[in-house]
């Protein structure tokens, strides 16, 4: 990993100022809406809306570029796998078949299959910006308090925020250890034999795990000295009250979800069929 993974990016924007609970509820509604439909018009609309919301957040493209390329790579693999194992799924769904290009053997590219896989792709595209946005605009501490508000035990919700805080730390440890070991001659690239690379990965993993475990005692003692876990409930420094924009956002999420349901199922099918 040569680029920083996702982590909270502090900025002052309307998206940042929503509570974590609001963003969680909105994201669940958004995901369900995207998941339930294959209606191309809805998916494209959701994609456009997600780009607009992304703009409002003031997050820069380069802040998320690495993880975005990673996701797109797997999306490509996914599309290839769909075609290889079910090249006529689109023809089955849309009830007709227009063969465009013959590839090999029994594999033809059909316009129906391309349309079907376009829907699968745009479905990803409508959700990806919101998923990335959720992580980079939500303070882990405030998010833990939001989970607690939604009914999750504060120990569990705090464990979630601790896990989120660990990610950049462990990633930095991994890079430091990897560079140090490479400076000592450990080679993980393709130049080395396979068995040697496996052995070399242990040279990185062992200190990674040790450095991770090393902090446990320090953190747990510090927290116990501060009386963490003594009570059944706790207050939250980073707690944030629902405000006007929170209610607006949740309402918009509900409207989008209901609109998606109505448009999808009034036709009696999840698929928008232009053929």
């Amino acid at each position, binding site marked *: *990993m040569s680029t920083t*993974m*996702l982590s909270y990016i502090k900025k002052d924007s309307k998206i940042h100022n929503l509570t974590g609970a609001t963003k*969680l509820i909105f*994201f*669940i509604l958004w*995901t*369900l809406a*995207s*998941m339930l439909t294959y209606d191309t018009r809805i998916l494209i609309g959701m994609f456009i809306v997600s780009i607009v919301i992304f703009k409002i957040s003031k997050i820069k493209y380069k802040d998320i570029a690495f*993880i975005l390329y*990673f*996701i797109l790579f*797997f999306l490509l*693999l*996914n599309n290839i*796998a769909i075609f290889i*194992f*079910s090249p006529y*799924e689109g023809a*089955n*769904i849309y009830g007709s078949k227009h063969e465009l290009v013959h590839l090999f053997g029994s594999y033809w590219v059909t316009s129906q299959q391309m349309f079907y896989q376009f829907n699968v792709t745009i479905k990803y595209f409508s*959700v*990806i910006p*919101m*998923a990335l946005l*959720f*992580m980079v605009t939500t303070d882990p501490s405030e998010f833990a308090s939001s989970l607690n508000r939604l009914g999750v035990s504060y*120990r*569990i919700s705090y*464990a*979630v925020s*601790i*896990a*989120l805080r*660990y*990610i950049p730390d*462990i*990633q930095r440890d*991994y890079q430091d250890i990897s560079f140090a070991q490479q400076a000592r001659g450990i080679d*993980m690239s*393709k130049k080395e034999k*396979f068995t040697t*690379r*496996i052995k070399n*990965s*242990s040279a990185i*993993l*062992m200190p990674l*795990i040790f450095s*991770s*475990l090393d902090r*446990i*005692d320090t*953190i*747990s003692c510090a*927290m*116990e000295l501060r009386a*963490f*876990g003594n009570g059944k409930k706790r207050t939250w420094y980073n707690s944030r009250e629902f405000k006007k924009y929170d209610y607006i956002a949740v309402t918009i999420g509900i409207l989008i979800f209901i609109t998606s349901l109505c448009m999808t199922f009034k036709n009696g099918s999840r698929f928008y069929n232009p053929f």
Partner: protein
Amino acid sequence: MKVKHMIIVPLFSALVIIGSYIQIPIGPVPFTLQTLMVVLSGIILGSKLGMLSQLIYMLIGLIGLPVFSGGKGGFSAVVSPTFGFVISFILIAYISGKIIESSIKNLKLKIFLASFIGCFSSYIIGIPYFFIIFKYILSNSIPFYKVLNLTFIPFIIGDLIKVLVATLISISLMSIPYIRNFTKS
């Protein structure tokens, strides 16, 4: 639970997340260290805490953070064919932990069994889930041998390698009393 345990559990959740991004370049099949980290969480934390660490990992992914394989996240992951393998992480950690907690005397044998059985137990949930999602959600009745070709056969060698690496690492780690007794105190 103790504060100490509450600190180490999300640590392993984070290690699983990091593990999905650490790739060792071998051949066409993606080889990440995610499953390795899941096995380690079961061996080091034990069955209950290990299972909890994977529950937290799954919770983080389900609420939308892109931590599942391939950067996926959100509730829609539930209808992804490969989500069964995420559920199986809970099973892997639990089984690995249970074997470590058993009364077998030979520590090295115990660790190998925990790694091997834990790693391959993911297919108990992963393969049926994959088949069901394809059949009922994606409306695509692919035959079972194709499911095996997609989910099992290409990964056997990679999984055996992970078992070996997990065993070697765990033997070294568990030979240290501090780590072996970490979650018992």
